[in-house]
């Protein structure tokens, strides 16, 4: 029943309610080590809520989240970050009044390296996403697309094993899109796993190894790209809504 033999993240029967509304209902999914898993669904399907439960921003009402064999339920976001899960946000959340260098220094606060080494790491990280020239500028001076890049570079500084990517392509021009896609694939090469939430089905289909479809908080189907593309339930969820 499991599509992967080596899951790094296991979500099992997760339920999150807001008052009377059930935002996530018995969601179960897995992310295989070194894979990219897509999570799709229409607006309000519960994708972001699910992400927030995994990242510890919301506390799940029921269910189990296991990461690399470690139970995540009850941990705070920074503990989850320390465990090796990084995330980006749907609307980029750069630290606006910090320089780009300092933005990248934040995830490395708990690392043992010296200040000089950290600066070097941060500079290298910025170079990776072509933002090195702006290193002394503040986060607020970047365009929306550049902020997406910065977030990507920033989350890398955590040295995560798994990255939760929330709409990495939203509002990004095609050139930057390509750059981001390349980066994601590069990181995957380096052994990092991804849970990717996006509206942009084209990108999802291009990148994902496995896809889950969420509708009204429930996982209504899962499978490889080809299975999903033709699944009538998906079509119905997207069109019949």
């Amino acid at each position, binding site marked *: 029943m499991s599509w992967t033999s080596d899951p790094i993240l296991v979500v099992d029967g997760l339920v999150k309610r807001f008052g009377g509304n059930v935002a996530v209902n018995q969601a179960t999914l897995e992310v295989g080590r070194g894979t990219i898993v897509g999570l799709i669904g229409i607006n309000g399907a519960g994708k972001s809520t699910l992400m927030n439960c995994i990242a510890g*921003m919301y506390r799940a009402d029921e269910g189990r989240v296991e990461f690399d064999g470690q139970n995540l339920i009850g941990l705070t976001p920074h503990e989850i970050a320390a465990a090796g899960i990084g995330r980006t946000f749907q609307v980029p959340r750069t*630290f606006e009044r910090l320089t780009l260098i300092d933005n990248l220094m934040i995830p490395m606060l708990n690392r043992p390296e010296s200040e000089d080494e950290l600066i070097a790491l941060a500079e290298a990280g910025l170079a990776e996403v072509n933002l090195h020239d*702006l290193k*002394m500028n503040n986060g607020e001076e970047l365009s929306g697309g550049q902020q997406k890049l910065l977030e990507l570079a920033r989350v890398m500084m*955590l040295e995560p094993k798994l990255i939760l990517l929330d709409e990495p392509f939203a509002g990004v021009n095609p050139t930057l899109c390509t750059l981001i896609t390349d980066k994601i694939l590069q990181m995957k090469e380096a052994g990092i796993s991804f849970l990717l939430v996006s509206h942009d089905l084209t990108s999802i289909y291009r990148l994902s190894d496995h896809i889950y479809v969420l509708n009204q908080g429930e996982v209504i189907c899962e499978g490889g790209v080809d299975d999903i593309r033709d699944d009538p339930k998906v079509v119905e969820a997207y069109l019949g809504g």
Partner: protein
Amino acid sequence: MADLSQTAPTATGALGRGSDIKRQRRIRRAIWYALILAIVIWCAMVPVRDGNLSIYFAFMLGATMATGLNFVAGFTGYMPFGYVAFYGLGSYVTGIAVKLLGIPVYLAVPMGGCAGILLALAFAPTLRLSGIYFAIVSLSLAIILQRSIALMPEEITGGSLGMNIGVLTDRIQGYYAMLVVLVMALLTASWLAESRLGRSLKAIREDAEAADAMGVNVVRSRLYAWLVSAFFASLVGGVQAWFTGAFDTFTAFDVLVTAKAIIYAMAGGLGTVIGPVVGTVVLVWADELVWRAFPELNSFLLGLVIALLILFAPRGIIGTLIRRYPRLRNYFM
């Protein structure tokens, strides 16, 4: 890099590629330490040349309070409107220790500082509130503390006349004590700004949730800032008692003490190290001019300055300068 040219700002190229962040930090530090040294020499000379101590004391007090407030308001984004609670507590603990327990004032002031830390620990649960809730609860707690002290027996707190330790303390010593506390606060500020703790605080100020997701222990970092901030306010309260000798529940818990700290820090630029000092210099000097020339207009002008600052320069003098000339970031801490 075609992909960058179509997007937002041109790189300021402040230092150019490959230039050294460490060098830039050295410059900032050199400027900052030179400023501290200048302040120390200038202020230390006042008693020697028999100048008007009170005005310089007011400046040092303002700069310390603004810097202390900056630790929590500038670095973490909380607006503790009841900041004066720590100041008042410091005054009273110092006064009681000197007058009733006969403890020398130079020991009593640190005791006041420690009492401030204890109070800050007691108030720590309020840190989970945000924005306006925090500000109002903080103000209410200050009022509750003030009224509680007013209700205490007159033998301890001096009742409505307040405490008078003027005969037991030396004013010139109090003046120099203020200078010491100011320098401590300024050094702490520059250390904090460059430390990992300070960096995490700034990240929290910008976006606490994002900082959390990046592995920053938000609760613990905020608590540290809160304690440091409270410690300095309590020290200042104690030194103020030392210098003037007389205080009561009205002056020791006057909400204007908080307001001035906020305004001085904001005028210079919250979240910068140099800002509170610059803001205090400008406003204390302006206040001195206004007070002599237009006594009746004083509080009107104070209010006007606040309103204009908020509307037209919400980041203060330094913050606005930096925003306009980003290159200055290399010189100001």
